[in-house]
């Protein structure tokens, strides 16, 4: 069964989203580094939707789903607003961002570097940002193997 969280488009709920995703990943026994990165990617995606698609309008909502299929963890952020081009966005050079003294421009860059696959799908009047990360097969960790 896929559990989901629906939250208002207000930045104060980003912590709630992170807690929800982290708890689902803990239930799936996803290791800490991958879990932290997936939580970060979902946080970035939701913050983008809230700020740029909804202008932090607290009456709008986002729906977040986390599930696992085989060796992949899927996270979906569903929004009723036209999607930002997460899957085709060309990240800016960091040096240029520093030179421009810009505060933004890093979030989508992070998502694209963290996740193995990023898609934007249209689903019955909604847009879904689908973020996919491959997970190491369960078993002794590399650290444990090295130590052994």
């Amino acid at each position, binding site marked *: 069964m896929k559990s989901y969280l629906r939250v208002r488009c207000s930045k104060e709920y980003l912590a709630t989203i992170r807690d929800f995703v982290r708890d689902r990943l803990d239930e799936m026994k996803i290791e800490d580094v991958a879990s932290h990165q997936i939580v970060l990617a979902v946080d970035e995606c939701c913050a983008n939707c*809230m700020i740029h698609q909804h202008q932090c309008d607290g009456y709008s909502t986002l729906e977040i789903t986390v599930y696992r299929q085989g060796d992949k963890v899927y996270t979906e952020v569903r929004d009723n607003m036209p999607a930002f081009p997460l899957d085709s966005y060309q990240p800016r050079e960091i040096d240029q961002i520093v030179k421009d*003294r810009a505060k*933004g421009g*890093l979030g989508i860059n992070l998502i694209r570097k963290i996740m193995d696959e990023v898609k934007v799908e249209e689903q019955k009047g909604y847009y879904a940002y689908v973020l996919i990360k491959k997970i190491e097969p369960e078993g002794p960790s590399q650290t444990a193997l090295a130590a052994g």
Partner: protein
Amino acid sequence: MEIRQIQQEHYVTLSPVGDLDAHSSVHLDEKIQKLVEAGKVMIHVDFSEVTYISSAGLGVFISYLDEIASQGGQLVLSQLSDNIYDVFSILGLNKLDHLIILSPEEKEVATYFVQK
């Protein structure tokens, strides 16, 4: 977000507490902006009580780097957890000029602010 500020001999230490995300990082932004506007560009940020950082938090530091450097200042970050250091390194921010990220073992922050 709580941010403690301590004036050291040659620099200012800021110690944020909690998560640095799109909601909370505005407070850190205001603190650094005030320091930079006052010409206090020797800035140390102690991450020992920071539990999370997103791109909004990173953006605060990145957006002041050029100005701090142009004023002859320095931005030094210390006591980052592994997960937070990972976020900086994913984007290569750990290799930027004028942004010094200390390893957990390095406690002597003051040596990075020797008066030039």
